[in-house]
């Protein structure tokens, strides 16, 4: 890692010694420290920008003669949810380089002062190293995963018995709304982005992402979005309580917490879009020599298709939430029938994002599963090209099915059958993937390590989630089970058994690469089995109470469902407790785990051909890619040649 003293400041020296330390210059002393990018500067810039936001609101209202001039909700919206966060970002230095460039101050294109991590402090500043950003993403998303998981525990506590136990209705509605929003926007989507941030440039043989400063900015938008959603519990009227779907017109007439959702989605969405653009440009332009599209690992393919989905679809949810907010604060009538608005318009726009979002939350998991299953079975991935093409098929079909969320919504009745057909067609590329994974493990030499358990757990649970999706795709059945616990069961089989299981597979699989240490295998397996069993006990019975007649999003229910709900609540507490094993394993292994080899899984993809953790700029020399990444069992086959002037290492020969 180089020595810790003496920052390298001259650009010439940096070029001469690329492996030298590139950490930031030490902060200046005295009052100048207040101007140095970091939390100290953010601590005064955020309030300053908040004040500017308030000033703009007051000035506009005074100018227009609108009373009251000091109007709480608009102050919160403009000051706290828009201007304040911009001040925070400016304070920590997310815009410094561009600001200097814009005002004509000298900038260095090859400035690596914000790159790499040399102490724990480097994880708490604007860092342009994709590996550091990946870790920042993962730590942040796991934090919000825990917060959202605790909210789910509160939901299950309330539902343990019929009648009202702990919360009033509005609080209860807030609990499940914030649970879902955090899990979706602050956990599943960004956790995949974090894993991909770490792994994709390494897999491509690239030194970093295409736009490292944009990458840093897109990370720092996330904590803003998450804190916004969580803090909505503290405002008068409580958290946003119209569900994560926030259907208008209900959401328009909810207490102030709703705008925390409207704006939180904007910050998280902007983060997603920037990251997706970054992935697209990185994958298109920064592949190592010889890395053709058809030699890319499937994880890269998965993130390529996911990023296309994000870039195309995310603006739609941004629009839907802006419309709701405008209806609320500017008295427009997008969804208000009295003013000529159209409530179903909200659902069409919302689901035009939110159905593709299901694939945004699933395709990266497909990629992780492909990597883990091929490596751990010691076999080439079965039908590589069809695997990549089925990702593309899901991408295209995913945009033609949104109205299957609206079969009972009152939309044009003729639209139901075409949407049912496209929905059911998605089962075909999805089936291809599942069968190809099964064919990959067939006759393999399976190593049942923790990542493999999660990957196989994913395949089995995702099949159940896919099959319950067929029930929901068939219009007559959907009419009966729509908005019941059957749907709750289905989405958890897809997003928990699918997305979360693959996130865990990815975290365990790349843990040695990320931290340079090995996790505890026994605890990893314990974590898997506790989660797997707790998950099924919690969510499988929900199918049953759903078809029998229990609607979703209720704080109270008919006595006939009391026994199952108590059972589900107890199981869910066990499921929640299994997370403690995960956290304990991560924390202790990161500190005291045994040092990891460069390639503990004997994998062929490029990230395993460098040290664990990788050097700051990933590769001392740009690798030359010469073949497929999955040639297990093919004598003499190679994916890439590294350090071409030296003899191939043992790993490459294998």
């Amino acid at each position, binding site marked *: 890692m180089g020595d810790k003293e003496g920052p390298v400041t001259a650009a010439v020296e940096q070029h001469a010694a690329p492996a030298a330390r590139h950490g930031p210059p030490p902060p200046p002393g005295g009052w100048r420290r207040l101007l140095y990018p970091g939390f100290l500067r953010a601590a005064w810039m955020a309030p300053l920008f908040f004040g500017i936001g308030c000033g703009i609101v007051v000035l506009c209202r005074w100018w227009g003669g609108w009373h009251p001039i000091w109007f709480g909700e608009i102050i919160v919206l403009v000051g706290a949810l828009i201007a304040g966060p911009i001040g925070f970002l400016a304070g920590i230095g997310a815009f410094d380089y561009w600001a200097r460039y814009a005002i004509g101050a000298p900038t260095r294109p090859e400035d690596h002062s914000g790159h790499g991590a040399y102490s724990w402090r480097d994880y708490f500043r604007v860092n342009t190293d994709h590996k550091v950003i990946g870790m920042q993403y993962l730590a942040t998303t796991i934090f919000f995963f825990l917060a959202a998981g605790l909210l789910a525990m509160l939901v299950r506590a309330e539902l343990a018995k019929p009648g009202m136990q702990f919360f009033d209705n509005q609080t209860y509605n807030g609990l499940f709304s914030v649970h879902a929003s955090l899990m979706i926007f602050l956990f599943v989507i960004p956790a995949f982005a974090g894993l991909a941030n770490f792994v994709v440039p390494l897999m491509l043989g690239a030194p970093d992402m295409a736009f490292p400063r944009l990458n840093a900015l897109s990370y720092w938008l996330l904590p803003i979005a998450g804190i916004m959603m969580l803090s909505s519990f503290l405002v008068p009227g409580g958290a946003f309580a119209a569900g994560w779907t926030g259907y208008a017109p209900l959401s328009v007439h909810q207490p102030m917490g709703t705008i925390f959702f409207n704006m939180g989605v904007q910050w998280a969405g902007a983060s997603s879009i920037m990251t997706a653009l970054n992935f697209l440009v990185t994958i298109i332009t920064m592949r190592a020599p010889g890395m053709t599209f058809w030699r890319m690992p499937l994880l890269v393919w998965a993130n390529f298709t996911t990023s296309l989905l994000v870039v195309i679809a995310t603006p739609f949810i941004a629009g839907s939430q802006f419309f709701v907010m405008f209806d609320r604060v500017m008295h427009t009538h997008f969804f208000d029938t009295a003013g000529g608005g159209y409530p179903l318009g909200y659902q069409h726009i919302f689901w035009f994002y939110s159905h593709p979002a299901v694939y945004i939350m699933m395709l990266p998991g497909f990629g992780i599963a492909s990597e883990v299953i091929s490596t751990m079975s010691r076999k080439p991935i079965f039908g590589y090209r069809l695997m990549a093409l089925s990702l593309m098929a899901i991408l295209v079909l995913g945009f033609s099915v949104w109205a299957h969320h609206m079969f009972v919504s009152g939309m044009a009745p003729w639209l139901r059958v075409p949407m049912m057909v496209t929905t059911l067609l998605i089962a075909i590329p999805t089936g291809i993937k599942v069968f190809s994974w*099964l064919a990959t493990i*067939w006759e393999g030499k*399976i190593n049942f390590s923790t990542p493999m358990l999660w990957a196989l757990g994913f395949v089995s649970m995702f099949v159940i989630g896919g099959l319950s999706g067929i*029930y929901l795709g068939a219009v007559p059945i959907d009419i009966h089970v729509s908005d019941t616990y059957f749907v709750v069961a289905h989405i958890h089989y897809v997003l928990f058994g699918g997305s979360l299981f693959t996130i865990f597979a990815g975290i365990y699989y790349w843990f040695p690469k990320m931290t340079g240490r090995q996790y505890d295998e026994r605890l990893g397996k314990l974590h898997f089995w506790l989660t797997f069993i707790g998950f099924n006990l919690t969510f499988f019975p929900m199918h049953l109470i759903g078809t029998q007649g229990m609607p979703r999003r*209720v704080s109270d229910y008919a006595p006939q469902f009391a026994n199952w709900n108590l059972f589900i609540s107890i199981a869910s507490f066990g499921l929640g407790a299994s997370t403690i094993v995960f956290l304990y394993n991560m924390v202790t292994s990161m500190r005291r785990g045994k040092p990891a080899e460069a390639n503990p899984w004997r994998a062929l993809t490029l990230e395993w051909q460098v040290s664990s953790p990788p050097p700051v700029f990933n590769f001392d020399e740009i690798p030359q890619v010469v073949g497929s990444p999955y040639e297990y069992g093919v004598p003499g086959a190679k994916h890439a040649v590294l350090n071409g002037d030296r003899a191939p290492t043992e790993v490459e020969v294998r």
Partner: protein
Amino acid sequence: MRRGSIVQLVLFALVASAAGVLLALLPNWLPKSASDEAGRIDFVFWFVTGICVFIFAIVAAVLAYSVLKFRAKPDDDSDGPPIHGHTGLEITWTAVPAVLVTSIAVVSAIVLAKDDAAGANPLRVDVTAQQFFWSYTYPGYGNKKSNVLRLPLDRSVVLRMTAKDVIHSFWVPEFRQKQDLVPGIHPTLHITPNKLGTYPVICTELCGLGHALMRSRVVVMEPQAFEQWATKKGP
């Protein structure tokens, strides 16, 4: 593949399908069926269940077999056979699911068309939802109003629905029919009750504070009793 392993795999699949069939038959998955539409919807439900048990059995058998048979020995660092694909297999597992989902789509579309058609001489009822109660109006009986939905046995009913404030959803599990009530539009729902009894009307679209308690009842009556009630003054 050896003959012995095929036999084992088939055995695994049989065990998995038996487990799937038991899971489908033992719990009482669906509430009592009390309308013609419910009978048809249940048919689709069991049709899909049959296909799902079949797919689940295949996946579970292959997975369980692989987990048991292809475990690497602790000191075995060798690779598996380098199989890159098999065009025949890939075509099969594209074509077979395509046929299955097409059959589901066709059955569903036929049932949907039947469930969407009113029978002869339908009874019209206007359903209005608002936070947090239901009201029913009978235009054919001098706009008679009621807080309980009373319907005659074996007569096609057309519910014309709307909401006054936010979106609600009308669901009677025993009828299997559901429809959102949206301010500004008037979607319809068709029901032909075929069993006497009282069933719950449940709101299934989150509509605010009182959503969980937004319930009402539907009473299916003998046609003469219904006529008597409908032509009588008062509720």
